[in-house]
């Protein structure tokens, strides 16, 4: 589904990713772990198309399409969605509007018509309930005045409504208390299916107790230096990253 090959990325002249390789297949949940500054957030930002990141070498393909040639919105419509670490506040744009406009943009790209209002309402109500969010929230401006936990839940709500093929979650667990974490994890788990994949970037093993990954990767100094299953995350939690570093240097 997602194929990242020998990806080199510089930000403001500084090389952050230095030949990253990653393959994510449909049906899989991947977790990328690593210390601060290793390039975790850079990877998801580059895949989503954020400006300020220069790809100097390598490739990213999604279902065989060259992602780097696609506009930001085309990536989203193709099913690549990024859940932000720091969701931005958008005063004056209501959540309900964003959800509907975004959903219809993807439907149009697939050659489907606009979603009928009753169907949309049913869908949104269902997903809201799942995320334990109050309907009044739809009338509020996107993320404006939201708590950290509400912002993260809102990111997942958007995912549930838009049903991405590949959901990328950037530090979705940061700033969440345990109750909010469970709700967010339930949301992400409900996205799991044979056709879909999830790529999580996280700092802490704790999230992976709730969203159990199929594959865990260690990102160090711009490269994936070790991959394993969920047990690798547990090992990282107890032993830290130094041993991986030493192992990869050897």
């Amino acid at each position, binding site marked *: 589904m997602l194929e990242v090959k020998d990806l080199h990325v510089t930000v403001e002249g500084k090389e952050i990713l230095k030949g990253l390789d990653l393959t994510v297949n449909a049906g899989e949940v991947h977790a990328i772990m690593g210390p601060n500054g290793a390039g975790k957030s850079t990877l998801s930002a580059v895949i*989503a*198309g*954020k*400006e300020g990141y220069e790809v100097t070498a390598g490739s990213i393909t999604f279902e065989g399409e060259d992602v780097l040639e696609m*506009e*930001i*919105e085309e*990536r*989203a*419509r193709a099913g690549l*969605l*990024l859940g*932000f670490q720091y*969701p*931005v*506040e*958008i*005063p*004056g*744009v*209501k959540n*309900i*509007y*964003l959800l*509907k*406009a*975004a959903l*219809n*943009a*993807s439907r149009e*790209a697939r050659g489907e018509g*606009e979603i009928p*209002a*009753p169907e*949309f*309402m*049913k869908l*949104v*109500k269902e997903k809201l309930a799942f995320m334990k969010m109050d*309907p*009044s929230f*739809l*009338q509020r*401006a*996107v993320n404006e005045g939201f708590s950290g936990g509400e912002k993260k839940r809102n990111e997942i709500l*958007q995912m549930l409504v*838009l049903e991405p093929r590949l959901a990328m979650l950037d530090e979705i667990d940061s700033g969440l208390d345990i109750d909010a974490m469970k709700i967010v994890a339930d949301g992400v788990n409900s996205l799991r299916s044979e056709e879909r994949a999830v790529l999580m970037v996280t700092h802490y093993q704790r999230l992976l107790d709730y969203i159990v990954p199929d594959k865990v990767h260690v990102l160090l100094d711009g490269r994936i230096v070790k991959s394993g299953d969920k047990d690798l995350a547990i090992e990282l939690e107890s032993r830290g990253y130094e041993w991986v570093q030493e192992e990869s240097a050897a």
Partner: protein
Amino acid sequence: MSEDIQPSAEQRFLERLKARDAVRGAEPTWIAARRQAAAARFEAIGFPSKRVEQWKYTDVRRIRDGEFALTDDADFSPAQAAALTLPIEAIRLTFVDGVFSPELSDLADLPDGASVEPLTQALADNHEAVGAVLGRLTGVEFSAFAALNMAFAEEGAVIRLAPGTVVEPPIVVQFLSRANEQAVMSHPRVLIQAGARSQATVLEHFVGERDAANFTNVVAEVFLERGAILTHYNLQEAPLGDALVQSLQVEQDRDSRFVSFNVDLGGALVRHDLVAELNAEGAEAQYYGLFFAQGRQHVDNHTLVNHNAPRTFSDENYKGILGDRARGVFNGKVVVKRDSQQIEGNQSNANLLLSDRAEIDAKPELEIYADDVKCAHGTTTGQLDEDAVFALRSRGIDEQTARGLLTLAFAGEVMDKVGLDAIAERVELAVAGKLPERFNLGSLVETGLLEEGASQGGVADDRND
């Protein structure tokens, strides 16, 4: 440059006036006298130069150096007029390049106690009644343009409400500008006299043919008696070659309320002067404005609130959105006269620049000569939040729509107060282009969604109603 070779701009305009005087029919002596006085005043002060503080940022050469004829016909294709007319139920007076068009007007829904008529009609019926008030506000001292208007004025709208009269449908005064072979000018008057406790909505709509390049110099005077409530809209969608100067002064008696919505979307050179005189306790003025300009449009909003009495209130919020090489001016002034205690006056102005070459000159001013007042003002200028643009695009919304949405959202604070959906729609289209839905969705969807169990059936039923 010697004067005897090149006539001054003022002289050229006054020549036109002289020619007009020669062909105009007989008039009551008071009108002729006021014309003469106005012409003298205009000649004495002349068009404002940029050295005049009030015109520092607005260059009027487009008007001063223009050749504008006068017209006497109101021919306009009904189909085209229909396309330009705001699609709302309304009482309507239409002027084509300043000339009254009975065909494009509709006065059928007028309730008892309300009178809406062209100025020529009001003069024919009782010129003394008109003369008693015309020019008392927004007079020849107001500005060179107000003086010029008084010198030329022949037509306009006269709206009178007897005490206690409530007019439900909006009264639309529509100014259509034509793409003439020779550019024309018009100097319409709007006179509104609202009796005690009367209530109405007046909408001045400036619109016209795309290639028009005319000059409209409208002067409005509004008298609100005790407890009268007037909501005044300007929907300014003048053709992009037009110059428009609008001078509006309101006199407010006790407990009266004047709510002004000023929406600027069109025009090459636009200047508004909006002045409220809060003359007695409880009088309240609210000014809400949105100016949106692109290309090389120039839009200048000068507002003034005079708190002439204790316990008077004003609230003002203007938003400016400027793209390309457009230029905006916002000058809002609040004056609290000596001993006008317990005043509340709030003013805010925020501007959004969509391009590096767009420019705004914003100046809020407070002059307070009393000590027990609550006044605040502030102005900000910024750009679109690029992180928000990315956030929207990363959800599949195309860039143009994303920028449009955020631009419109900026105007939201002001637009939320606009009670006429038709105006909100025009703004939406001008500012954001054609959006996927009504912005922030119509109330239909919202209520349907929020009411428990009102899902499918509820909406279907609403549609069938």
